[in-house]
């Protein structure tokens, strides 16, 4: 039985972006997992990506992200206390990037957007 190529591609796309898939490295909003909040950021050309935010005093060194093999997806899992946390990504130590996907966005007061991740008490 031959399966149309469009169906295969669609299934692959769904599998790659499904938040329910624990091993996905597709772009998603930050997702709560038992180990902490999982951040995924896709940047194929980056040599390094760091997660920065209100939870680490905007440190560009404390939360380096790991690159998934053979893909441009960078991931980090961070244990965060319940509440609202602001975040951005820093590429190659210098390029600050507003999250392409986030639960919400707020102005940072300087003209850029911080991503917002909300950790609810029952999600820890």
């Amino acid at each position: 039985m031959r399966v149309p190529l469009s169906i295969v591609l669609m299934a692959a796309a769904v599998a790659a972006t499904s938040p329910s898939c624990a091993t996905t490295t597709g772009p998603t909003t930050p997702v709560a997992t038992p180990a902490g909040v999982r951040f995924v950021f896709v940047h194929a050309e980056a040599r390094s990506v760091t997660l920065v935010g209100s939870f680490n005093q905007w440190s560009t060194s404390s939360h380096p992200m790991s690159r998934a093999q053979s893909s441009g997806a960078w991931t980090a899992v961070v244990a965060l206390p319940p509440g609202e946390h602001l975040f951005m990504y820093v590429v190659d130590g210098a390029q600050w990037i507003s999250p392409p996907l986030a639960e919400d966005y707020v102005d940072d007061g300087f003209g850029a957007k911080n991503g917002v991740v909300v950790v609810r008490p029952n999600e820890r």
Partner: protein
Amino acid sequence: MGLGRKMEWWLYGRMNVSRVVTALLVIASGLASPALCAAQSVPAAEREALVRLSVDRGGRPEEVDALIRHANEAGAKGLPMTPLTNKIREGLAKGYDVPRIESVIKQMAGHLESADRMVRELQPASSGAGREAPVTLLADALGGGVTADEVAEIRRLSQASGKPALSPDGLAGAAKGLSFVKDARLPVTEGTAVMAEAAGRGFRSHEMVDLGREIKRRERDYREGRASLPALREAIARGARPDQLFRDGRTRTPDRPAAARPEPTATRPEPAARPERPRPPDRPEGTERTR
């Protein structure tokens, strides 16, 4: 009156005076202690970390001191300093120049002062430590575009007869929830009524924040008539609890359409494009959600 009797009266008088003086001292120290306890300054280690951050990016220590002065002034007034030092750190880390950071800090300090005044009006006896969380959250709401008049309206509506007294945390949560409604550019009067009803019904602070966030998440439903804020207020008035308000339950915010996402920025974050949306007539000018 004999000498012994005179001595007795004299001693009695002296004791009364000393009692009065002692009582006055106790009252004075009681009045002064919240301010004294709350008055603080940026710790030396925090200052050093900020200076290091600035110097690493080509700045000078005295520039950082100019920023820290604003935080110290806030601390001297018993206002929370952490939001200010966090914002200084964020600005320095992102590479913004000091005057720009200073302007943001001044604005935040103004919001903190206004929020502190509102909380004191609501609960004059609240202590410095107990005031910090609601003041910070309320200041955040003010930074998000909620006005003092709207906060006063939440307070007035929520304290209608028969409803429990509004706490500082409740007021701050309702105001923060309203900031989401305003951010979604939904009718402010209706949003205020929703938040006041929730506050009056004893919703907890974080429940009202979540309520506002959920309304914002469903902004298209409200704008396009599939949901209505007055109906939401009525449901709350009928006794619905936060987990009963949205029949399909709270789900993760769907990914934003590409047009609404911030553009990738180079080196330093730059303003992100925001899609044009119709403005309701009752949205006040000159307010912007800033965190």
